[in-house]
């Protein structure tokens, strides 16, 4: 197992290198110029050229890449062109809101989707099943920002129960933290509820006809126990795969959700950095997201061994 984990971790190195090269090249080859953006609308050509020189953007791409890669390997992502802050500081500032949003979303999604999926399978063909399936289609189809605006209109503007936007740090109080994260998390969770409920239903439905379910029932087990201990446990592998996939998808979802709800997380940072062509920040954030994606996949693979003892690495 340890060898497998080490092998997988080593395999992330070439992946990250490829990502680094691609991100670096894509940014340099797009028709944009951070120096012109920094200089502002009233700046003349000479002022823009001077800023470009100061940022080292007048050097050949290869030189820029070697300098950047050298620093990155030492854990130095450089200084943001715009914020005049170290990129690592910017990222660490933004980590808490994004992690909070992601975790709460996953918790809400799992807490709602798995019971719904199991019940839909149990009541296969009934009204609950049809409702869950209908909701799944809706959850997949409606864009995140539409869900966001509808929820904001109902819960923040009409009912005035929750704030429209913003984020409060956990250290400033759980109440404010939760109050500001509830709507964004529900918004983001909708698609995951749809995804997880659907796969849970399918997986549970598959195992419900297995011999061991019939045996459990014959032995007098209650229906909840049959569903949870026997059906759900055996249907867990595909569900965990989809949850892992969902966590990966979250990276895209937070970008939109954080922008709509004005949450100062990594998603907002990514959008701001891309709009401002803040190369050091974009490069670091994309590397971080890629690393997170690779690690999530590793964790999902390792989880299989706990859920199904037949799986060995």
């Amino acid at each position, binding site marked *: 197992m340890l060898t497998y984990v080490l092998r997988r971790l080593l395999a992330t190195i070439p992946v990250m290198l490829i990502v680094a090269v691609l991100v670096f090249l894509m940014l340099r080859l797009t028709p944009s110029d951070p120096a*012109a953006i920094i200089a*502002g609308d*009233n*700046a003349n050509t000479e*002022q823009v050229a001077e800023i470009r020189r100061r940022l080292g953007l007048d050097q050949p791409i290869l030189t820029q890449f070697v300098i950047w890669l050298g620093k990155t390997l030492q854990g130095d992502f450089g200084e943001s062109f715009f914020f005049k802050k170290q990129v690592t500081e910017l990222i660490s500032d933004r980590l808490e809101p994004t992690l909070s949003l992601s975790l709460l979303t996953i918790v809400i999604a799992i807490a709602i989707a798995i019971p719904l999926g199991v019940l839909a399978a149990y009541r296969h063909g009934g009204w609950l099943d049809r409702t869950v399936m209908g909701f799944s289609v809706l959850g997949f189809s409606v864009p995140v920002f539409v869900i966001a605006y509808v929820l904001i209109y109902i819960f923040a503007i009409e009912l005035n129960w929750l704030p429209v936007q913003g984020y409060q740090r956990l250290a400033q109080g759980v*109440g404010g933290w939760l109050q500001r994260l*509830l709507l964004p998390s529900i918004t983001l969770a909708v698609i995951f509820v749809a995804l997880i409920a659907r796969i849970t239903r399918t997986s549970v439905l598959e195992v419900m006809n297995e011999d061991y379910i019939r045996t459990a029932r014959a032995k007098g087990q209650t229906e909840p126990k049959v569903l949870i201990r026997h059906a759900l446990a055996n249907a867990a592998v595909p569900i965990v795969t989809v949850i892992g996939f969902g966590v990966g998808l979250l990276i895209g979802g937070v970008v939109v959700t954080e922008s709509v709800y004005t949450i*100062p997380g990594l998603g907002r940072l990514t959008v*701001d950095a891309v709009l401002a062509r803040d190369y050091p920040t974009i490069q670091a954030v994309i590397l971080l997201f890629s690393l997170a994606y690779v690690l999530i996949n590793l964790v999902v693979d390792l989880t299989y061994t706990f859920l199904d003892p037949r799986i060995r690495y």
Partner: protein
Amino acid sequence: MGHLRRCLFALAAAAALGGLSAAANAQNTLRAVMHSDLKILDPIWTTAYIVRNHGYMIYDTLFATDEKGEVKPQMVGKYDVSADQLTHTFTLREGLVWHDGQPVTAEDCVASIKRWAAKDSTGQKLMSFVDNLAVKDDKTFSMTLKAPTGLVLLGLGKPSSNVPFMMPKRVADTDPNTQISDFTGSGPFVFKRDEWKPGDKTVYVKFDKYKPRSEPASGFAGGKVVSVDRVEWRAIADHQQAINALLAGEIDFIEAPPHDLLPLAIGDSNVKLYDWNVLGNQFTFRPNWTAKPFDNAKIRQALLYAFNQKDFLEAVVGDAKYYKVCPSYFPCGTELFTEKGLEGKLTSDFNKAQALLQEAGYDGTPIVLMHSTDVQILTNLAPVAKSLMEKAGFKVDMQSMDWQTLVARRAKKDPPTAGGWHAFLTSWVSIDITNPIFTGFMNAACDKAMFGWPCDAEMEKLRDDFARETDPGKRKAIAEQVQVRAAEVVTHVPLGQWYQPAVMRKNVNGMLKAPAPVFWNITLN
């Protein structure tokens, strides 16, 4: 089920407590959404308007422009000009201190003027007249000129980017091409660097030791009396969400809401509109003189006949309350406004435009028109320009891109078929184009001009004449000549004036009318 109910109750209670604490915090705090997030902090290093606005919060100026556009002393208490108009002496008023408690000195001001003048085009022009800047004593310095110029007050009282903000000498000695890292000012607010979170919020607190002038506040001039303890600039990028937050009472002020969202805001009884920038803004078409066929003056003149301002203003702003047809390079409502040189133009006289194209021998080269798609106020300009140009006989290749790509591309002098460009449209804040020196697009100094690179010795001579002239009447006459010349050679095309009211909660009172939003004089009831 009972357990679930208890959990939900606990969550609701916690959430409610969070809300109460946030509301209590906000009582003495003005929460504003500005037109952009503050990312850069040096108002001399960049010309970006949000950084200029930040400068007005924490720095003060020697002179300032009032609501009528007149330059008044601000940090300066006494100002003398010698009879030959060659020596200008400035004495700072008493009681001015930096945010770190140190007194403001003449030495600080001289260093600040030098740093500003090294970057700003008006400052550079002013310094071409300056023979010597000398510190006389702690509070007094003088500027000796080689020749009289009207640029001394015009420059030192320059209201928009780059504004000559005063900084402590240790800060002002920073290379003008390097960003400052010490944000000590002497303005009415103190920047809270520890609370500055780009992408989230920028925080200012009242500077208790600030000594306002005794005159009433007017524009950027007069007594800067601060009545709120704290101002927070919240970064809400989504316009709809900013309006939602305003309606929900989570913020107090939005600087630049899109016109199409204004009906949403003004339908609420707790919200009001306020036009703080009475001079508004001007849409502008900029041709690239270095790219054929716009190297030909006649072809550029065809643009002046092809366009009409109303089509642009209707397409972008829509509501006539918020725009004005103004056939002038200098904005309507300003001292130098004139229609001279533009008579009979900007009327979409396609026959005249076609005749000019024919006369110039236009060969049908497609005009590469850059179309910005992500800045809401600019998005509809290029399609209107394309339509009018095509009616006049131009072939137009409109290329869509985001604003930042356009900004990068407009700096390139490559041929339009190889990544260059022929034209783009933008918008200027009116205060930046009130005279031939401020107006960047009137600079016709060839390679040293702004992108578009007009090259016209006559225009440059007229601008120099304007800089030298000190008599207001004669300056107006020169400005008229500048406009006539601008319309002959077509440095750019003015496409009408538009206004951007702010929206705010009704408890926000006392906001001043000025070319940039300022937060002194405001009370929260």
